[in-house]
């Protein structure tokens, strides 16, 4: 009955140590159950979430936020500092920096999303196979992951993008592939846990086919922590995508993109700092907000 669930018999070590250890139990229980809704109302979370919603709206309906055309240059308004007409100033061709930031959001977010999707899909399949089949498959996948994890992610991305060539899709692939290793590790660990459950063996007894068991009984019970990781990696993906665009691997020249915005302002840093610092600040804020939201989701479970 319900109260047995609420108060699992806690061990007590007759020496007293256990008593202290055990007494921590109830508080953790509470954190899990009662306190969860309240935690979602924490101010950091609220501010972060609101900011992300705003950024999402930039991506979906940029026209709501700026009336300037991001491609329209204006020779009379070159390198203007931030003002009420040009919120983030203008660049060397007189284009409105805020308009370029807002219109570039879609490219950056879509590229990050694509990168995460690639990482999620590939690592799910690898993690399921490694964890469920085990044996030599597990060993093979495990070794490759270990090697990949030993190399910094950005370096892997750079190597890939050099081979694949430039473009938004290619940097998405490059960033996605570099995150596969850590995702696969988490997925594999979850699968190892889930496959112990009797309902998985029961499905085997029920004659359910291999891939169906994985899809129906293992995958849905294993993805929760991986999803949390995806949310957590979202900020890192934006950062990596922006870094690659900054280096010039991303979207082609006139198209606005966060990383390339930062890069293009670099030459004027001495007298038009806003071109670099302000878009850069936005990237940093988005990454921080994404992390804050992801951690909250992870905590609440």
């Amino acid at each position, binding site marked *: *009955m*319900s*109260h*047995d669930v*609420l*108060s*699992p*018999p*806690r*061990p*007590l*070590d*007759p*020496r*007293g*140590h*256990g*008593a*202290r250890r*055990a*007494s921590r*139990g*109830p*508080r953790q*229980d*509470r954190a899990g*159950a*009662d306190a969860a809704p309240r935690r979602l109302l924490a101010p950091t979370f609220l501010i972060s979430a609101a900011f992300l919603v705003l950024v999402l709206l930039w991506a979906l309906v940029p026209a709501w936020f700026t009336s300037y055309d991001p491609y329209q240059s204006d020779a009379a308004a070159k390198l203007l500092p931030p003002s009420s007409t040009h919120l983030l100033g203008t660049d060397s061709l007189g284009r409105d920096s805020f308009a370029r930031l807002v219109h570039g959001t879609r490219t950056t977010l879509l590229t990050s999303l694509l990168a995460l999707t690639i990482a999620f899909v590939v690592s799910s399949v690898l993690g399921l196979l490694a964890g469920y089949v085990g044996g030599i498959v597990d060993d093979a996948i495990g070794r490759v992951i270990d090697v990949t994890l030993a190399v910094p992610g950005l370096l892997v991305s750079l190597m890939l993008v050099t081979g694949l060539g430039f473009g938004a899709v290619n940097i998405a692939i490059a960033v996605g592939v570099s995150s596969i290793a850590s995702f696969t590790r988490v997925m594999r660990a979850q699968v190892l846990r889930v496959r112990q*459950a*009797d*309902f998985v*063996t*029961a*499905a*085997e*007894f*029920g*004659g*359910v*086919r291999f891939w*169906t068991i994985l899809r*129906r*009984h293992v995958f*849905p*019970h294993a993805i929760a922590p991986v999803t949390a990781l995806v949310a957590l990696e979202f900020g890192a993906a934006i950062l990596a995508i922006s870094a690659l665009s900054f280096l010039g691997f991303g979207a082609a020249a006139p198209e606005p993109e966060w990383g390339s915005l930062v890069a293009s302002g670099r030459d004027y840093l001495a007298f038009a700092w806003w071109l670099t610092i302000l878009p850069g600040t936005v990237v940093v804020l988005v990454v921080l907000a994404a992390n804050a939201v992801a951690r909250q989701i992870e905590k609440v479970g």
Partner: protein
Amino acid sequence: MTSEHQPPTPILDVRDLSIAYTRGRESVTAVDSVSFALAPGDRLAIIGESGSGKSSIVNSLLGLLPENSRRSATSVRFDDVDLSALSSETDWNQVRGHRIAFIPQDPTIALDPVMRIGPQVVETLTLHGGLERRAARGRTLELLDQVGIRDPERVFRAHPHELSGGMRQRVLIAIALAGDAELIIADEPTSGLDVTVQGVVLDLLDEVVRSHGVSVVLITHDLAVAGARADQILVLQDGRIIESGRTAEILAAPRSAYTRRMLEAAPSIHHTKLAASAEARERAVPAAPGGSDRGQSLLELRGVVKEYSRRGLGQGTFRAVDEVSLAVPAGSSLGIVGESGSGKSTLARIATGIVRPDQGQVLYRGENVTHRRGAVKRRLFSQMQYVFQNPYSSLDPRFSVAEVIAEPLDALQATSRSERDRRVAEVLDAVGLPADIARRSPTELSGGQRQRVAIARAVALRPPLLVLDEPVSALDVTVQAQILQLLADLQAEFSLTYLFITHDLAVVRLLCDDALVLENGHVVEHRPVADLFADPAEDYTRALLAAIP
């Protein structure tokens, strides 16, 4: 202070104890005005099924109630201490672990896994007994010897994981003695142990009560254990005392219907095989087309061996199953009995083809299916199904009951939607569940209902053979009895053959024709159940028989 029982001065006196838990805006009463008193040297058994409030009472006596609980009581007095007045952990530590010792269900969590056994006992002696280290060491060895540990020196140096469950419980009892406890609270102290060890641990507890004059509160769900081990019994249901008194009186003349049901449900009080109910026999389907094969062996194992490599230090292999041969005649039930580690579950998995034997053969209706794969393997799954021990783990919580039952039907017998729905409704009815349960999630069901769903899934395919792996040991006693009756009924109704894995010979007597006793992977005895009970040939079997409470 007045007392109903008028004992000398009770060591524990609980009056009108109520405990409620709040979750969100709801408040659930777990314990409702419970009063009892315990005289020094007395043994009180608190009996109830899961959810009856036993654990809440224990936790309140140990100051371990969670923060979302509210407790009220006229008095909770332990000797000269008012437990209801203790608030800080420091206050509790004066009593708990020192004067009140606790023996939990799972001894592993009460011992520090990274500390050797010796120092854990020594610590209690130096902390509470004021002994200096050297003297404490000698006293520890003495205590370990007293609790029946044959090799105290070795155990002193051992880490908890190197000891068996029974040994760990003994160590905890030794720690209780070291602290000079006046009251031992034992919460299902033996339900995690093998049957033959259970008796020994309970005997030891009795011995301690006699020799040290300690009082015991024994929490159990097993009336048989309470009957043999307690002076007083308190029967709890839904947080209320529904019966209390001297043990002999309650066993002789239980007043409440609930206690009577519990008494009747105890598997050990039945001495013959359960008969199928009249309705089940009426509903029995005539033998499957192809003629009756009653008497011929449906499943046969010949010299089956399974070895596992030992993990860690590379100590070679370990034989989980050692040259086991057996035959299950169609329509009969074979019980495979053994303690944990005897290889019975491995044997069941070999029989069903989930695990492959290293040597030997598996025959189904005379056909060698040892190395089945692909289509043959799938065909055999519709011939034999498996029922797991733990109904909380064997049903996918994301599925509805109907989906759970329909899954093997869809996978193995391509049927139309309506046919499938009809079959699901049919088996739900056969296992005694209401039809509207089909749309619900297993997580909303009780343990007994879940096990019925698991059984329904297994019989939905109409397999001739069911392998039942401890199907009742995770359930409450009264529920156990219902599930055993259901299995007897289903056997008659669908002419099923059972391979029944259990640690409990009493259950075998209820359900099986033959019994195979397994010890460390090899067969000790394989005989008809009646013979086995009348005249056990082996010491090991006698130990198992003696373990029936």
